[in-house]
Structure formats: C-alpha cells, structure tokens
C-alpha cells in the first residue's frame, strides 16, 4: 500500500522524521506492554502464580502439575479471549468512526452490540442452552440487522446519516433492544442464570471452545480492516471528498460494514456486549499515531487488547474472591471519557 515515505526527508523539519521512525517503534513498545500485561494477568486469580510457572506451562508443559493445568485450561484461554474482544471491539469502533466521520461511532453507541446481545439472549430463551455455532450465527445476524436498522433510521429524511442522527438512532435502537433483553432476563429465570454475567460483558469462564469458534471470525475482521485501512483514511475526509477523489464509497462502506459485523459480532459472541472499548480506544490510538488508518488500525487493536486485559485483571483482584465483570470495570473508565468526548470532540 501507499506510503508517502519521502515526506521524511522533505522539509528538514524534525517532526515528520520523528513520526516516521516513531510509529513502528511505538507499535513494538505497545506489543511488549501487552505481553507484560498478559503475563501479569495470568498470575492473578484464586491462586497467585509465579511468572516462571507460566513460562514452564507454556514451554515445558507437565500435565501432572496442577498449576500448569490451570494456566493452560483456565487462565490462558481467558486472556486470549480478552485480547480477541479487546482488539475486535476497538478496531470495529475505529472503522465505524472513520466511515461515519462521527467521533462517537462504536459498536455500543450505535446499537450493534445491543443487537447482537439481544439475538443471543432471544436464542437462549427460545432454545435453551444454544450450542456455540448457534450463538455465533445469532450474534452475527443480530449485529448485521442492528447495523442495517440503525443506518436506515439515520438516513431517513434530508441530509442523510449525519453524525448526530446516527448517534441518536443508534442510542435509541440500543435502548429499545436492551429493554427486550432485560424483559426476557427478568421473565425467564433459566436464561437469566445462564447468561447473567454475559449480558454486562464478562470474560469469566471463557474457555478454548469459545476462543476457537469465534476467534477466527474476529481475526478475519482484523485482516480485512488492515486491508481496508488506506481506504478508510480517504473516506474519513468525508464522503463527498472521497467520491470526488474517485473512491467507490458504496463498495468500501459495504466491505467495512461486513468487517464491523465480524469484529463486533464475534466479540459479543465471546464476552457479551462489552461497552466503551470501541468508543475510547481509537481516540487514544489517534493521539499516539495520528490520522492514518494504516497505523490507527494496528495501534487500536493492541491498545484495545491492553485495556481489556487490564480491566479484566483489576476486576478479578479488587474484591477477591468476588469478581467484577470486565464490562462493569470498563464502564467506570469509559463513562468519564465519554463526557470528555461529548464536551470537546464533537463539532
């Protein structure tokens, strides 16, 4: 893909030289930070483990050692699930923000997560403990239907889907579907027991099965997002400008929407409608790496993974042996950030 690499030597101005070297280094630093956070997260739980035990469990596995077993079957899948949903939801948010030129766009605000969650809860209510395949299909279709309804609602009337109309129709759709979700959960004790934690967004008890079923969907979404990233930069200048530059915006929007559905649907299937990751992380990434989506996408993925891992770890530790779901922990951070965005970033 295109890189205006020559900009580095162009002006003799230190800023761009700094930026060009800085970005790969910054991404590497972020990845190292993620690995450190993951290691610490694995040590935390009912029993505190040492880092050396993690190393042994990974590279000198002994099935007779109980701690090794715990790491391999309980803690490792949980942190991997955290990485997947952190990256998935955050990148979904980045794509949506670029596509709509709306700083508030994200799977939670625009109702995508709520749609996916409602579909899964409805499925559990109707069919009882649904197999994972069904959960996945339900989450994807819920996300897709939500995206279509919200976009159609926002596009109605003159002026099309402006940021304000899109946000409004997303929030309204999210509230409406959440009301149904809550109604089902209150009326049906069985469903409630099964997915009580899931509906606020939780990584508790995630095992390899979920990771292996839904992880690949999110991975496809991430690769698609990377391939589309240069196009997203162009469309983030506004649809008219992008069209004027010769971009086929309808095709780009359709592909990007498909990626959002894979990313958000897959993430919700794993951990429920975890809020705020998709909203805040792209903004943090932009502060670090600027406006080019070829960098925003990878930075967003890594920072999203870090944020979810940290929130999940803190949620496990603060009230031990009780656990605070990761969705609740993120709301503590996310709500103030939302106010900041609404106050300063919305034109």
């Amino acid at each position, binding site marked *: *893909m295109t890189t*205006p690499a*020559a900009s580095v030597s162009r002006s003799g*101005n230190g800023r761009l030289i700094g930026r060009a070297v800085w970005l790969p280094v910054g991404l590497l630093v972020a990845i190292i930070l993620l690995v450190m956070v993951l290691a610490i997260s694995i040590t935390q739980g009912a029993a505190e483990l040492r880092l050396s035990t993690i190393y042994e469990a990974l590279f000198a596995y002994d099935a007779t050692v109980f701690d090794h077993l715990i790491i391999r079957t309980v803690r490792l899948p949980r942190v991997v699930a955290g990485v997947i949903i952190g990256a998935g939801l955050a990148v979904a948010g980045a794509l949506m923000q670029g596509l709509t030129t709306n700083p508030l766009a994200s799977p939670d605000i625009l109702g995508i997560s709520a749609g996916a969650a409602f579909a899964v809860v409805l499925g559990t209510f109707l069919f009882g403990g649904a197999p994972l395949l069904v959960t996945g299909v339900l989450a994807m279709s819920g996300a897709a239907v939500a995206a279509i309804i919200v976009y159609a609602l926002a596009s109605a009337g003159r002026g099309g889907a402006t940021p304000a109309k899109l946000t409004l129709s997303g929030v309204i759709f999210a509230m409406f579907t959440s009301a149904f979700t809550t109604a089902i959960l209150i009326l049906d004790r069985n469903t409630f027991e099964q997915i009580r934690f899931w509906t606020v967004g939780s990584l508790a008890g995630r095992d390899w099965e979920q990771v292996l079923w839904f992880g690949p969907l999110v991975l496809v979404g991430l690769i698609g997002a990377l391939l589309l990233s240069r196009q997203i930069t162009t469309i983030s200048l506004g649809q008219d400008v992008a069209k004027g530059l010769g971009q086929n915006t309808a095709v780009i929007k359709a592909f990007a929407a498909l990626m959002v559905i894979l990313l958000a649907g897959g993430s919700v299937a794993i951990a429920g409608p975890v809020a705020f990751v998709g909203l805040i992380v792209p903004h943090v990434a932009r502060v670090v790496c600027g406006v080019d989506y070829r960098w925003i996408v990878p930075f967003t993925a890594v920072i999203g993974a870090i944020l979810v891992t940290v929130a999940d770890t803190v949620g496990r530790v603060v009230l031990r042996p009780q656990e605070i779901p990761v969705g609740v922990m993120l709301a503590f951070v996310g709500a103030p950030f939302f106010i900041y965005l609404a106050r300063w970033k919305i034109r």
Partner: protein
Amino acid sequence: METKNLSLAYDRETIIQQLSLSIVTGEITTLVGPNGCGKSTLLRGLARLLKPKAGEVLLDGKAIHALPTKQLAKQLGILPQGPTAPEGLTVYELVAQGRYPHQGFFQQWSPEDEETTREAIAITNMVELADRPLDTLSGGQRQRAWIAMTLAQKTPILLLDEPTTFLDIGYQLEVMELIERLNRERQMTILLVLHDLNQAARYSQRMVVLNQGRIVADGTPGAVLTKELLANVFKVQANIVIDPDSGSPVCLPYRTAVPTPHSNGANGHKK
C-alpha cells in the same frame, strides 16, 4: 463538459429541471443565484456526487455516470462546500490524498506522486505550512490546502462549491487570486459556485445565473449583471458601476425591490 436536459432531485423534491449548459474549456465560469436556486445542487450533479433524475452530464461526449469513478477523478476535481478534515491531519497528508485516483490498491507511493504533491503545495503557497495540522491554520490557509488536494489530482477541470464562504475578505481574495492564477497559468477549466456577485463578476469570464432550478441569464459579467436582473432574481434595487481597477461591473444594492405582480425571476433575462 456539458449537461443535456439534466434534472436533479433530493428524494421527491426536484431542484434542477431540464437544464442544458455547456462549460467552455479554459474559462472560469461562475454559477450564481439566490439561496435555494439549485446552484450547489447543479455543481454536485456535474461532479457525479448526485445521480441525475433525468438527462445526463457529458464529458468529452461520454456520460460521466457511466465512467469508472476513478477515471473521472483524473479528469475532474471537486471541492465540496465546507469540507472538514479529521483532527490532526497535516497539509501534506491532505494533499497526498489527492493522488488517490492515480494509485492502485497495492501500488506504492511513486516519485511522480511525491513530485505532484509538492508541486500542488508549492503553487498554493503552502510550503511553509506543509507539516502543520489543518486545525491550526486560518480559514484561508485551510481552504488553500483543500484546493491543493484537488490540484494533486492533476485534473484539467476543477469544480469548487462556494470556496470563499465564511472567510474574511482578505482570505476570500487570496482564494480567488489562486483560482485566477490556476486558470491563467495552467489553463484549467474552473467552474465555481459563488455567493458574492461582485467577486463572480471580477474573476470569471462567464456568469450563469440560476433561479428556481433554471438558467435565467448566461454570458459575460457585463451582459449579465444588470439592474433588471438584480431586481427580478435577487429582489434588490441596485446601481451598477464599473470598477476602475479591473473594468468589471460592480453592483451596489441600496434597497430591497418591491415585488411587482407580474414579474418573476424566471424570465428576468428577457427584459
């Protein structure tokens, strides 16, 4: 470039009706008219941002809506009204986006891309500001950066929708002088929508006046800018004087016109 019986509409509301207009290559043409007359809509139709409801827009004899959009973007640049850039986008990064139609999906940034980008920055006098984010610039500088982006497209035709609106007078002239220079030095065909009649008269070779979706006057500024037209289309009484500096007509409105029962703007040019 021309339109044939072009009709444009938003939803069910028809804005432009059966309009035929031919843009002369190498000229600066200005579309003017009262609010809601359809001048911006027409420009959007010419730039294929709006699909025709009927009729067609032709470029070198070919209907533009049938052309691959990327190919058209090498022929025709468009700057929509009041574009907004993502926060933190630098001038250089913006102008580099102008190379979009010249790149493939996996194609690398070529020396030609770099050269054209620099040239566009240079001709708009933005070299000193190339590394600055757009949100730190003045309105006039920002508008020049956007124009530079369309110049990096290297198109012979440029469409501009109200490029001077919301700018201070000095910045307005800065932008208009740039447009004049692009026309004179690079022989670019430029079609713009303007709000200010005197600027339109001063900088363009041809003025096209729209009212209620129809062309009501079309010609040189001297022929178009008359007391009758101002009274009928813009509903103002005005004196027309000649600018001693440029020789172009200048209108000095002094009172709103009392609407007379049988005059309406649509036939103003016949009077």
